[in-house]
């Protein structure tokens, strides 16, 4: 591996440490540097992903400080990490480019950029970490940065949402820390591979089961699955639009779903009960999220509720895979279900961040995000209208776009696994999503242009480029599944990591 793995954390960190020194005068230089950082991260990620897929090794291990594995901390770069790193880099590059112009309406821009990069560094650290306490530390960096960014506007609602988010987030962090302590008390090690080996040797005793339950609650709170979703509909709309895109697009996935999947599949091992638990959580999120979304009249709040619902699909796919694996069923269907879940994860990251960028564009041009006050923007904001239409079609699962393919795979997997009612619910939720987004299109872009919004203009070019970029991705992402070489180099390695499950420990130890 020619690129040392800590670069993915060190580069945004060093940039974030330097940026606040620029202050008010060097604002443009700071913006340029921050964009340089995210773009170079994107390039580095693509290079590493290519190296991983063309090289012979399944995974790379980087031992920090030259210490052998149980002594020091190690970073693990495997298919799943590479997949999530790609997602993070793409969305963060787009959101950062969008903030160049959008964040001009706030003060303290260099601090905003610094917090943004800290959040990216935290997420990269979570994805790469091979040590469970280290995962907690980086999770905390990303969460703290997101609490501050949610309250960035310092208005009434934003502060309240930020406080609510912060309390629930901190409680979930404490749960995770308690679970880490229990794991240490039972196994005597913090390295994921060694914990996994100790669990395979000694079996899952009651202490570790309690730790697993705490992990599920903690990561469930971070990913806003339905019994734990109370903070999300407040927090995501309150943040500035690029941050909403980051939060909904990747933060809940990295801190929630990725960490949950890693703990369940690779450390503790799948079982029938955890499979059912994930399926029930996913199903609840899907149904409750979408029905709460239908009644919303605030554009960003509506999108936030849809995030809960779409996260349900991801967790449903992963949980179905876990259930099939634990029952010893056909591995092909299990990998199909997990493939659907992971593919929906990246698809949702793309189209949901695009939708939030659209909402930011609308809000910046018109000054409101209430659906009832908007209308007829199709003629004055053609680019926003076009990209938003593509994203809405994607999220609703209209055929040529990316959302369709991942939903199709999940439905096929549920049918093959014999859960016909689950398949039916999946399709119905997708239809309700379609109706809800038709409402958005109708009220925002079609109909009569209100008197107040006559002077509305399309936004500046620097805001349009990331939206067009993401819209192109929405159209083209289907190819990720349809072209065999792309599928085998990006999606399949990620699925294989989860299917292999507890082999993770021997894989890491043998490197």
């Amino acid at each position, binding site marked *: 591996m020619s690129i040392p793995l800590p670069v993915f954390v060190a580069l945004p960190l060093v940039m974030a440490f330097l940026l606040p020194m620029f202050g008010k005068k060097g604002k443009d230089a700071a913006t340029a540097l921050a964009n340089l950082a995210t773009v170079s991260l994107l390039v580095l990620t693509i290079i590493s992903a290519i190296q991983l897929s063309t090289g012979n090794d399944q995974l790379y291990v980087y031992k920090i400080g030259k210490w052998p594995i149980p002594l020091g901390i190690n970073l693990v770069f495997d298919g799943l990490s590479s997949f999530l790193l790609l997602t993070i880099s793409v969305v963060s590059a787009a959101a950062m480019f969008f903030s160049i112009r959008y964040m001009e309406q706030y003060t303290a821009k260099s601090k905003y950029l610094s917090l943004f990069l800290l959040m990216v560094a935290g997420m990269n650290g979570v994805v790469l970490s091979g040590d469970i306490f280290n995962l907690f530390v980086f999770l905390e960096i990303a969460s703290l940065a997101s609490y501050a960014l949610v309250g960035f506007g*310092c208005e009434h609602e934003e502060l*309240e949402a930020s*406080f609510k988010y912060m309390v629930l987030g*901190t409680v979930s*962090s404490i749960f995770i820390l308690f679970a880490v*302590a229990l794991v240490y008390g039972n196994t005597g090690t913090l390295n994921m591979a060694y914990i996994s080996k100790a669990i395979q040797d000694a079996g899952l005793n009651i202490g570790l089961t309690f730790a697993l339950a705490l992990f599920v609650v903690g990561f469930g709170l971070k990913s806003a699955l339905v019994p734990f979703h109370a903070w999300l509909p407040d927090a995501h709309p309150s943040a500035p639009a690029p941050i909403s895109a980051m939060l909904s697009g990747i933060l809940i996935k990295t801190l929630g779903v990725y960490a949950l999947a890693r703990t369940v599949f690779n450390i503790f091992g799948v079982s029938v009960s955890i499979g059912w638990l994930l399926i029930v959580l996913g199903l609840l999120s899907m149904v409750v999220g979408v029905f709460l979304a239908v009644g919303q009249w605030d554009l960003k709040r509506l999108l936030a509720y849809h995030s809960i619902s779409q996260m349900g699909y991801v967790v449903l796919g992963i949980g179905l895979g876990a259930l099939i694996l634990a029952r010893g069923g056909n591995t092909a269907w299990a990998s199909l279900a997990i493939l659907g879940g992971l593919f929906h994860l990246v698809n949702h990251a793309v189209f949901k961040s695009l939708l939030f960028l659209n909402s930011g564009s609308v809000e910046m041009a018109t000054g409101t995000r209430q659906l009832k006050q908007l209308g007829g923007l199709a003629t004055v904001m053609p680019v926003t209208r076009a990209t938003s239409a593509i994203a809405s079609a994607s999220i609703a699962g209209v055929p040529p776009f990316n959302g369709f393919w991942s939903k199709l795979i999940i439905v096929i997997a549920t049918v093959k696994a014999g859960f016909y009612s689950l398949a039916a619910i999946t399709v119905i939720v997708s239809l309700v999503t379609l109706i809800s987004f038709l409402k958005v299109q109708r009220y925002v872009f079609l109909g009569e242009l209100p008197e107040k919004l006559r002077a509305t203009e399309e936004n500046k070019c620097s805001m349009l480029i990331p939206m067009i970029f993401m819209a192109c991705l929405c159209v083209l992402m289907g190819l990720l599944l349809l072209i065999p070489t792309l599928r085998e180099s990006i999606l399949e390695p990620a699925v294989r990591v989860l299917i292999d499950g507890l082999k993770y420990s021997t894989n890491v130890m043998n490197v």
Partner: protein
Amino acid sequence: MPYALCLLLFMIGLYCVVVKKNMVKIVIGIMVMEYAVNLFLVMLGFNAGGIAPIIDKTQYDPQTQQIAASFINSSVDPLPQALVLTSIVISLGSLALMISICTRTYEKYGTFDITELRRLKG
């Protein structure tokens, strides 16, 4: 048994976070939970009759570079202590951020009561 008392402390904190309506009280509940977890972690590494994991000059032989067996056999576990050091600083950081949000909210609404906030937002 000391572990159970630690869990009780944790649960008192959780109760405070869930039930109380005052922002500062919620922060206090979170702090109590953090204390409980920190104590639990350090207790995990404790040895009855142990000594602190700091090597004294008398326990070290410069010629052979050997550490006395008395230290090796009775030292407590240094790893949980390192973890707790990290977690104390993390909790200080989140305390600072949370208190800033509280003061700013107080300035906006003039109250620390979260049910009042919902009413005022209206």
